[in-house]
């Protein structure tokens, strides 16, 4: 199969045409850019057919896990006694990730249109959008967009005379990273403490208030309308099989032009950084490592970064993941031990605390990182640290703890000599001090 390796998208092919905020984000601007066109036709399409198209498109969730969206939507049971719900996860909190923020700020109607179609496809009449607490302007724009859509007749009862009813409620979080985990989000939405639930039951069976619920990331939902309007063929021209489509990459760190950019999937990482983010500060040869998909994905070494393609499967093959596609670039001036210690502290702060290994382990790991990155400790403790991460990983209710351990495992794997150097340096210094004192 010939894969057209696109590196940039034409304005036409972009889903988020106003991602940079240069145009009007209100409904007028969105309609000018082609939004809501053909919505009535889609709302007249049977949900079954929509889901089939999504399956054919191989759209995979953009929130981190990369689960096929069509398949996810097909799990929803037909509406019986209880209502079905669509919940949009806009609790974007993974360090490095800021794509949903720009969608909400500059192109909120892409999400609203996606929700309308999503609700129709899932048999839901109500959608909740759970927006990260810190996203104040973002929630405001989204709410305004929703109000505009109501006014224009795209929301409410009998939308465009298609007998489809959709209501959207915006709910803001209170600043907990863990509420981005879908079941913790549901708990929080229900007014409880945001803690992940044990599965099963899965949300499609018993989700929000015990009703069938589908939870999707903002970007995923917003990508549905163009796929249906422009067709599967258009969509699958981007990216390798099973990884098709376009994707917003959030590129930050040691690059000349940090940005959010929508690019085709399977784009080489090097191209992404060089063409879209102005290249690594100090040149490609100055690259130290790259975190490819948000802070919880294990990092890539400079050598790996040279050739890797940015998609789900390619990154999985090398033991990391596409995650939220938040690319964090570190060059040789970066104090990588400090960066990883900081990330470790973040996870220590954000564990919900219900599982023993996570509650106790992330704090222990952070404290060891803090010490060892300053050379305070013994070389053997590096092995110890690795063992602790293994005691935590795979032993908890949700994947948070795994995500908190991987970066540490990654830095131990790739940069152990840096720790050792720090430890030796500290040892030497204290020896000198001691001799100085005794002299």
């Amino acid at each position, binding site marked *: 199969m010939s894969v057209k390796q696109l590196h940039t998208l034409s304005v036409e092919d972009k889903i988020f045409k106003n991602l940079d905020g240069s145009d009007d984000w209100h409904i007028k601007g969105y309609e000018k850019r082609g939004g809501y066109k053909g919505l009535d036709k889609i709302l007249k399409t049977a949900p079954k057919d929509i889901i089939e198209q999504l399956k054919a498109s191989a759209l995979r969730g953009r929130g981190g896990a990369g689960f096929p969206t069509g398949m996810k939507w097909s799990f929803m049971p037909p509406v019986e006694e209880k209502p079905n719900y669509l919940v949009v996860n806009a609790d974007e909190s993974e360090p490095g990730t800021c794509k949903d923020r720009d969608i909400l700020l500059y192109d909120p109607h892409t999400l609203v249109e996606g929700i309308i179609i999503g609700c129709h496809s899932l048999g839901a009449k109500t959608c909740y959008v759970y927006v990260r607490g810190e996203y104040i302007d973002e929630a405001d724009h989204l709410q305004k967009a929703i109000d505009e859509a109501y006014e224009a007749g795209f929301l409410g009862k009998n939308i465009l005379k298609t007998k489809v009813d959709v209501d959207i409620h915006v709910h803001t979080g209170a600043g907990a990273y863990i509420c981005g985990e879908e079941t913790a989000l549901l708990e929080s939405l229900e007014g409880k403490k945001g803690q992940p639930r044990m599965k099963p039951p899965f949300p499609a069976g018993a989700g929000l208030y015990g009703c069938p619920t589908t939870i999707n990331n903002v970007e995923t939902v917003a990508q549905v309308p163009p796929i249906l309007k422009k067709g599967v063929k258009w969509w699958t021209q981007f990216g390798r099989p099973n990884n098709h489509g376009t994707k917003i990459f959030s590129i930050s760190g040691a690059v000349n032009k940090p940005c959010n950019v929508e690019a085709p999937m399977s784009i080489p990482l090097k191209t992404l950084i060089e063409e879209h983010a102005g290249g690594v500060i100090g040149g490609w040869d100055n690259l130290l490592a790259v975190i490819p998909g948000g802070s919880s994905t294990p990092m890539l070494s400079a050598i790996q970064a040279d050739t890797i393609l940015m998609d789900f499967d390619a990154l999985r093959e090398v033991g990391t993941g596409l995650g939220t596609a938040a690319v964090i670039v570190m060059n040789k001036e970066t104090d990588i031990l400090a960066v990883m210690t900081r990330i470790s502290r973040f996870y220590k702060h954000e564990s919900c605390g219900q599982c023993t*290994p996570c509650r106790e382990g992330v704090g*222990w790991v952070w404290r060891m990182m803090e010490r060892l990155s300053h050379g305070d400790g013994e070389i053997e403790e590096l092995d110890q640290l690795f*063992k*602790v991460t293994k005691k935590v990983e*795979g032993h908890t209710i949700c994947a948070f703890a795994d995500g908190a351990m991987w970066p540490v495992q990654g830095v131990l794997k790739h940069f152990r000599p840096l720790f050792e150097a720090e430890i030796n340096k500290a040892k030497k210094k204290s020896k000198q001090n001691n001799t100085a004192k005794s002299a």
Partner: protein
Amino acid sequence: MSDDNQITLTINDQKVVVDKGTSIIEAAKQSGIEVPHFCYHKRLSTPANCRMCLVEIKGAPKAMPSCYTMVGQDMEVYTNSELAQNSQKGVMELMLINHPLDCPICDQAGECDLQDMAVSYGSDRTHFKEEKRAVPDKNLGPLIRTVMTRCIHCTRCIRFATEVAGVPEMCATGRGENMQVGTYVEKALESELSGNMIDLCPVGALCSKPYAFTARPWELEHTDSVDVMDGIGSNIRIFHRGGKVMRIDPVECEDINEEWISDTARFSYDGLNRSRLTTPLRRKGKSLEACGWPQAFDAIKKAAGKASKPDAIAGLAGDMFSAEDLYSFNAFMKTTLKTDNVDARTDGSTMTGKHRCKYVFNSGIKGIDKADFILIVGANPRLEAPVLNARIRKNVLSKRLQVAVVGAPCDLTYPTMHSENTAIILDQIASGEHPFAKQLEDAKNPMIIVGAAATLARKDAPQIMYRLYTIADQYRVVNKDWHGFNVLQQKPGRIAALDLAVYPEEKGKDTAGILKALADKKIELLVLYGESDIPPESLKGAKTTIFIGSHLSPYAEVADIILPAAAYTEKTALWMNTEGRAQESKKAVAPPMQAKEDWKIFRALSAEIADPLPFDTQSQLRALIVKRAPVFENLNTFVPPKWESFGLAGHILDNAFEQPVRSFYKTNEIMRASQVMTECQDLADARADVNAKQRKVG
């Protein structure tokens, strides 16, 4: 042979057959394999958060929590494989890094799950070099002492408060390693069952406050017995040392108390050592002075000899007595003193022991699990039988049992429908006008729970009972397979008193008659056996008054002679619980100093006054009891009595039902003597005041 509801699997290569829907941890337990765990508890929901019970399941990508994972056909489970053991060891190490390991000063030491598990499944060293966490303690009131640094965040206490006790006051605030278990607002828990959290807490984070630092578990002896602080007869274990009760814990009994007990059962024991009568006393002018048993007996003999006729003698018994106590008292009054003026129904009830079905909990407490609609009449099960109320709550939450109340307003911790508080609602139900009638009709297993305290002492009790009989009959509350007519007795001795006819059997005076005769100065010798609901002022007037009891009570002021008797922990005796199930309490400690077991007192006294009563030993006494009431023969078994008609036709009064329990922590002399219970009652009263004020403002 394959059964659709059975699953075959292997655990550690051992073949196991269990019911579908069993968790792996339970399946393992059934086949004698222990899986370490902390958060899992079979009577609470399963959050799977301690992660201690991880096991290997062949084919699963990682270790799975055995509490949450259900068995599957042909599953291969390993609880001791390398993967499982490494998981358990790892979790154990993480569990301990922030645990203070202050076992030498911890009350839980010696019976601590964490200690046990750490020895069996942990490692003998830690690699933790950082500083340990310290957590401020919480004030949960006079019953529970907290040392929250020891908390391992299993959330059992939170789940118990929310799910079983129905007081969602416990919570975990903060997240990650800063998560703290406590109450949302710092205050004493408003639950009658809070002490159970002490048992549930696997570590020493929640311990008994009254018991704190008084004993080590390995110094204690224990005796399994029966609680008498309410009428359900919860099974308990009495821990004692050197003749003193040190602690009371529940014993699991599926039929009665599951594994809970009320706070009154658990914490009133300090009342056993306070205000006790320890020697016979004799009145000398205004004061009472100690005397020997012979002197006391002599005085009683004289008083009895002086009585002009049997009708000038009367006896009243309280509600804290066992079958032995009541039988011997009854025999002493009726045979030795030859009077029929005897009554143990001091609340004024006139119900007799005829038709047992009208005064017991016919469905059995376990029957609640089958009911789908309960009509509560004049009862407040939360205060009259907290453990039974928790059982109702469990069923309300799990299978939509509906509960309707005709009676004084009450918060039963679960949703209820309340009618107007007047007894004539029963007429409307009987005639089908009231909406509750329809619910009774629609229910498959309808149940009626009648509160004895607020109903049976009313003037119109016979008419109410008649109406209830009609309702029960008409709405199939009693049918071939279901006996849903229940009377809830708060008083632990009342059913035995009815079974043994401790009331006038011929022409004698009942409580009202005796009180009237007293007021008319027609009683010459009055025997008061234990405290009762009657205020001491109304008991004045007899020439000689004898008080026999375990505690110094307000009755002492009217008494001329006082004899010290035994409390429930000091006698092996038969008790009839509200179901009409006979259970045996065991003597854990001896009665204090000169005090004696009650039946021995009556037996000895009878020999002083006339012919000795016909029993020399407790087994002879038991034989007489069984002869009189065969229901005492089979211990621990529950046999529903025959359904027969009862009550009297006639008008029901348009009166409200009264609150059956006014002071929950002060319902008998032991609780009244208890300092701990006093503190609880003071708190409850203060709370009630605040609530009343708020209602006024609101």
